[in-house]
């Protein structure tokens, strides 16, 4: 039986703009994935704990507030601390070009800015899931 890719979509921190996250969530569902949507104002602890319980393959973070260097990295650091290595982390939102390499180095493997086609995200996830 075919395994379904499970993705947690979360909005960390103080940012009420969830249209992008919802569009991506829908696109992933339409690509046959199971998407757990957690909503707004999440802490890194809530996101990582939910990812553990839901046994997801991917965590997708969305942030438009500019605090991604703190909030995305809180998540990757907490994953590392808990010894969770088989979860792919991707992020999207308003992210300046110069931050992208730093995010990738810190474990946010895929970074997607405005104008990204949803198919691109789907392809990236399919290629890079770790199990």
């Amino acid at each position: 039986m075919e395994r379904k890719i499970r993705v947690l979509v979360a909005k960390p921190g103080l940012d009420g703009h969830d249209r992008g996250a919802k569009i991506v969530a829908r696109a992933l569902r339409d690509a046959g994935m199971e998407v757990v949507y957690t909503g707004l104002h999440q802490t890194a602890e809530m996101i990582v704990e939910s990812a553990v319980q839901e046994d997801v393959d991917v965590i997708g973070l969305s942030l438009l507030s500019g605090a991604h260097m703190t909030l995305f990295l809180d998540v990757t650091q907490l994953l590392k601390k808990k010894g969770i290595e088989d979860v792919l982390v991707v992020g999207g939102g308003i992210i300046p070009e110069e931050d992208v390499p730093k995010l990738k180095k810190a474990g946010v493997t895929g970074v997607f800015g405005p104008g990204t086609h949803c198919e691109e995200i789907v392809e990236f996830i399919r290629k890079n899931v770790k199990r």
Partner: protein
Amino acid sequence: MNEIVAKVLKGDARSIARLITLAENNDPDVMSAMKDIHPHTGNAYVIGITGVMGSGKSTLIYELTREYRQQGLKVGIIAIDPTSPFSGGALLGDRVRMMELATDDGVFIRSMGTRGMLGGLTSAVYDVVEILDASGKDIVMVETVGIGQAEVDVIKIADTTLVVLVPGLGDSIQTIKAGVMEIADIFVVNKADRSGVEQTIAEIESYIDIANTDRDRKTPVLSTIAKESKGISELIYEIDKHREYLKKTKRFDAQRRKRYEAELVEIIRKRLMDFIFDEPKFTGKVESLIDQMSKKEVDPYTAADEILGKILK
């Protein structure tokens, strides 16, 4: 014993989560794991929560869980949402209302897609209830998909079934009475701050007066405003009362026996279907029979007999 099972029995969240995934994916390893899990089950009380879309089932579960946590009980939650029949994907959004519980290690929440099952549940739900039960949860709540008329499978797995309605359904109570109205152990009219609540309660009461077949117990109708935490302790009191009633009247064991029956039927159904439709020597035969049916060369019953005949001999 299986290493993952040993960890599940200790309540380790990552192992519980991984074993649930194996069960969901019908993984061959799950069979031996469930053999070791089964003897450790039977302690958790299972509450089914069903009701129309948007009736506030998830918020109600959140509030019930907070109350049970204050009593020191551990809670497992299975939240089921529909799988798209077209893409096979699913948007699982019940967690949004429960995120405050995410970091409580006495609570385990799992979102699941129906993956082709009708009836409001998902095929692996029996395994998942057993896994959560064995992991030491005192209460397991199963939230079905938002229902219409026929999604009544939750009674196969729940000890107490809550049917959640909202004011202003009006005549639709008439239309849903056929299936869904019959399965309630407790009716909950949520969002009771909306207008029309008295009328909705009256309609349910009059339905119960006609339909109640159990002489020992009248199905209670409660009103709640889950998002303001109103009516929750009263609801827990009624759940406890129903639990005592089941124990006192010996219905509890009979009901649990029915759950095992449903579980057995589901496992056999799943394995038979896999056997027929995933087995290469049958798939060709199935396809050609469908072609023959389209051309009116064979009727549906004869076609079914051809397949079944190959298995049953």
